[in-house]
């Protein structure tokens, strides 16, 4: 961290703590968002199946998965996205779901467009992902990219990830089900997913 960035800080941040097992007291079906995209949202529609596994390869239920993404033009519905592109009024770009006993949850959304990254280089289409579950003291931040996308090889963020581990960030198309993608998140173990220090 640069001295410059320290200069502004006057308060120490509150520590994180695990969500524990009972967050669905508040994070209920009524305020979870499976359909990130609505029927009239512009873009290539996706059904995304997410599964969460622990170090022993066992599925992890009661896990909150949050998704944040840009619209099909690569514009975030947020005041700090100053790109000269339009927001899509039907599209907040946020979803959250809780995994079931099978460790799975699903989202309906659209494939995001490309957004700028460090030094203006365009990032490949990706979803920002937060993983919250008991036994995880601070949420895990990861990303979901799309396997086979031509932009992956020039994404400045993927370039930070050792080649051998990039596959852990790639959703895979499900054979015979066009538009359906599957993504596995391994919290730990041999297939451990890449997590980011955000």
């Amino acid at each position, binding site marked *: 961290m640069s001295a410059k960035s320290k200069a502004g800080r006057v*308060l120490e941040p509150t520590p994180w703590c695990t969500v524990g097992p009972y967050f669905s007291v508040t994070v209920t079906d009524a305020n979870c968002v499976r359909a990130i995209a609505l029927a009239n949202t512009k873009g290539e529609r996706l059904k995304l199946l997410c599964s969460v596994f622990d170090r022993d390869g066992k599925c992890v239920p009661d896990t909150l998965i949050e998704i944040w993404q840009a619209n099909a033009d690569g514009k975030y519905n947020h005041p*700090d*996205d100053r790109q000269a592109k339009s927001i899509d009024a039907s599209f907040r770009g946020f979803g959250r779901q809780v995994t079931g006993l099978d460790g799975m949850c699903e989202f309906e959304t659209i494939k995001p467009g490309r957004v700028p990254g460090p030094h203006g280089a365009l990032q490949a289409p990706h979803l920002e992902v937060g993983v919250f579950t008991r036994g995880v003291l601070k949420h895990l931040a990861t990303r979901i990219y799309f396997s086979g996308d031509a932009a992956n090889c020039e994404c400045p963020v993927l370039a930070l990830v050792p080649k051998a581990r990039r596959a852990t960030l790639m959703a895979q198309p499900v054979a015979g089900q066009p538009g359906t993608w599957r993504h596995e998140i391994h919290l730990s173990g041999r297939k451990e997913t890449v997590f980011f220090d955000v």
Partner: protein
Amino acid sequence: MYNALAMSRPSKRPRDSNLVTPYHRYPRGSQPPYLYPPYRLTLSRAPRKPLIVLPHTLSEITGPVFGHDDARETDNDLTRQHAGEPLGERITVSGRVLDDNGRPVPNTLIEIWQCNSAGRYRHRIDQHHAPLDPNFSGGGRTLTDAHGNYRFVTVKPGSYPWENHPNAWRPAHIHFSLYGTAFATRLVTQMYFPGDPLFPFDPIFNSVRDERARQRMISRFEMNRTEPGWSLGFRFDLVVRGRESTPFERKE
């Protein structure tokens, strides 16, 4: 419905839309490690490979914007969600959400959840042999006001046993979840009550290794926040990460 521009004031920003003003990194020791063996479940759920440091891009400095559709006026009162009143000590929990630059975080969504005064959650997997309260669900949400203030009315949660180790009990706590202004400002924590005798024995509380950081999870009893003849008052301020100041910002 999701008019982001109306909900939060844009921060000072560089003119080039490709440049972003990142958020501060967490100070060393201010956060719990992923692997903390006294909290047994971390053994099977903590990543072992080092995290990859992600420079903040547009994806990290933006995040979901919430508005009044996301929290009704009455959602901050957990004592009025049923026909009768819940059992237990009535309390208010109030405070401010600030960023680490000391600036208030307005219009941000706060969600809380807790067990009832007997130490039982209204949740399918809570098997603790303590009574459910038909008048208490234990969930609330609110938006901070223009100055970052929030307030909840609830009952003081009980302590309850859990299966981490023999005779393990959680200190009384209320879970807090905040989004702040960006993906990078997300915060989920637990608020504790001053003087809880269970602190020394709780691996979740003690997973935050820095004593001063642990103190920031403990609310303060404030006499001037009590409502005479009605409720005890606890103050809990939350601090999320703020932005770095950059030369670009000063130019504007």
